[in-house]
């Protein structure tokens, strides 16, 4: 089949390969699943009303959380569950953020057994200011959650400015979250 190829024809395979590589490059940029473009980015956190995992002492047990509880300062909303190994992996980093920074973290206990979740928090420590109970995953649907863990950064008005699918690591904190938080704080001043 190659009996009469011209010299230039021999470069055809290279000509096929380079566009494929370019597509790979673009696809790679777009498809990095940690940075899935969320339809919610730049949108307000959805309205919701849900129970709490473990009301703080002195707070009525039937108190329910809503969107209003997420306003006023930048905060992280972290979707987690005890069945999720990656949540365990990021737990230490959340504990560190809680201990070393002023940023508040709100948990969404997603499709989980509340007793197991309480045990988990007692055993490994509690980085959350409070935990929204989402046992049936309905808030997760509103949020377009793919799986746990997922983390949303909200600004003071409750608008989602950043979303991460997967583990929060030290690197993610430094490279992604911190710059966003500083921007929010700067805009607020």
């Amino acid at each position, binding site marked *: *089949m*190659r009996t009469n190829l011209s010299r230039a024809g*021999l470069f055809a395979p*290279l000509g096929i390969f380079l566009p494929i590589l370019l*597509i*790979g490059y*673009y*696809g790679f940029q777009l498809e990095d699943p*940690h940075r899935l473009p969320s339809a919610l980015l730049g949108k307000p956190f959805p309205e919701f009303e849900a129970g709490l995992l473990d009301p703080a002492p002195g707070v009525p047990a039937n108190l329910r959380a809503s969107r209003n509880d997420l306003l006023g300062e930048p905060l992280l909303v972290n979707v987690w569950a005890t069945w999720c190994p990656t949540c365990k992996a990021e737990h230490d980093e959340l504990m560190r953020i809680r201990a070393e920074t002023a940023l508040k973290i709100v948990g969404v206990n997603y499709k989980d057994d509340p007793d197991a979740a309480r045990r988990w928090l007692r055993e490994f420590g509690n980085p959350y200011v409070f935990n929204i109970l989402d046992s049936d995953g309905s808030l997760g649907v509103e949020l377009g959650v793919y799986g746990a863990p997922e983390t949303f950064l909200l600004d003071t008005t409750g608008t989602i400015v950043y979303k991460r699918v997967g583990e929060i690591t030290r690197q993610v904190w430094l490279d992604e979250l911190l710059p966003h938080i500083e921007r929010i704080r700067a805009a607020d001043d």
Partner: protein
Amino acid sequence: MIPELGNFSLVLALVLSAITGAGGLLGARAGRVRWMRAAASAVSGQLVFVALAFVVLVHAFVTDDFSVAYVAHNSNSLLPWYYKVSAVWGAHEGSFLLWVLIMTVWMTAVAVRRRHLPLDFHARALGVMGLLNLGFLSFLVFTSNPFERLLPLAPADGSDLNPLLQDFGLIVHPPMLYTGYVGFSVAFAFAIAALLTGRLDSAWARWSRPWTNAAWAFLTVGIALGSWWAYYELGWGGWWFWDPVENASFMPWLAGTALVHSLAVTEKRGTFKSWTALLAIAAFSLSLLGAFIVRSGVLTSVHAFAVDPARGMFILMFLFVVVGGSLTLFGIRARAVAAGVRYGPFSREAFLLLNNLLFVVALGVVLLGTLYPLAYEALSGGAKISIGPPWFNTFFVPLMLLVALALGIGPFLSWKRTGIATLRRRLAWSAGAGLALGVLLPLILDEALSPGTLLAVVLAGWVLTGHGLDIARRMRLPDAVRRKPDPGAPGHDGKRARRSRRAGRIPLAYWGMTVAHAGFAMSLLGVALTHELSVEKDIRMVPGEAAEHGGVVFRFNGIVSTEGPNYVSRSGRFEVADGDRRLLLVPEKRQYLAGGSVMTEAAIDPGFFKDIYVSLGEPLEGDAWAVRVYVKPFVRWIWFGALLMAFGGTLALADKRYRRLRTTDSTRVRALPASPAHAPGPAGTGIADYAPGSNAPRGKPG
């Protein structure tokens, strides 16, 4: 301390791979025998250190050293020991270490076969492999180090191996697949060495063939194992999903299959040379592309265990350098015009060309179907589309039927041309037998078959009969005829082949081809019949209830709770009556303790003619369960066929003509340490480029 030893070994191996790369390529160019020797010695060093690193990681897993991050993320003290070992390649870092280990073993094998190749060719091939290994080792050490520690706070226990991967299939599937992928690096390195020296000739093809066959056989087994694993472990009952990750392994296979056939023409007839070199580059490049697709996280699926932008970018740059570089070299060095070899339309050359054409088009279909959604997403700014199985099946099925049609003719043709009269008589028999099978099989099975399935059955019969008749014909050739050169036999051009025929022996390579082609026919039958005759039902069952599907009666006798080493499980008891046979099938729903994930373990009664498959769905109200029951006739034939193909490939590489040492021609090179001229020599030579005692010219090759 021990994990640091592993890390250090990898760094040493990295340095040694650079020595192999530089020593091999520069030594061959400068004609320095000592550099070339050093390149080969550095290979043994790499083997020692990479193997040491691998053993260290296995040790870390077996001794539950959770201070090693990779062990903590992928193992658990409750894991049975054999899964602790296989967990070594259960995720990204370790599986890449396995990849490097396999690469090093292939390199060692090439290094050991030194006396079969001319010194400079051997050094160049090793040099190319050394550079590849340098890339792999850098990737491992700098972006995917399996020995990273979680210090000072090592977790008390690990977060467990992904339960999907706690399975026999996953112990053996990656090593086989990687051996195939990486094995194509030998064919690749030989092609690059041949392009560099300008000796793209039949000797090069003969040297490449056993290596290519071996890699291809491993890849075939690897893909079959993956398909088998998906069938029984994922609980979907399908055996191929056109999932991008499956396609990633299938594309090098298609290119490799074309390469195996194209090499035959280049070896025997000295033609298709540039094309063959291109296929060798393509087979390995597609292996790398597969690694990119699977490892970069471009696609999110069960296979993309690890997602890290730095890794993806590294692989992309590596692809750019390796594939872009080799295709550029190809463009500069390959010869556009073949040495005027003529052949008719009914010749072995023409049919091997047809084989190549069909496989390359099939490759194009799969490549497009895999990359198009990605390209669309890139160009449309994020809109997701899915092409899915209909696209692949529309093109792939007719292509494979055409392959089968050609396969019933091609192998019995002579080189150059074949008399139509003899051919017609032989083909009439195969066609008759194929049609007879098409008529008889529906009667035996007592099932009406659709036209498409019937066509596949007829073609399978056509292929099997053709090959059977040809083997029979060769076996009973009378002495007198055997003594005459038989234009229909492969290798009629070799004195050795003639001698072996006189001894009444059919060359192993011929047996290999026949077995592999029979395997193809068997897989074809399996695919067609499974597709047509499978019964798949999702039903609701309460304990005590019975249901009949596909001629099999399933009785549900309730659920029992059991405990495994690292999971608790609910298992269903199903009494199954298949004709006179009575058996108990116990599908499970497992909850793994460490991760908490729930896995479905299907219960399968495997059989040569029929698989019976029960898997538990979800519990419904009361005692009722959603139950999935499948009856899958002939599904095993798909994988048996693949194993036969791999076995055929292995038989062919054991053929004794590959065990010969260097030809007298090529030994001369050793006495002439000068480098070959930088310009490609006249067609089919190479030796002619060597001027005795010449030190010049040492221009850059390419």
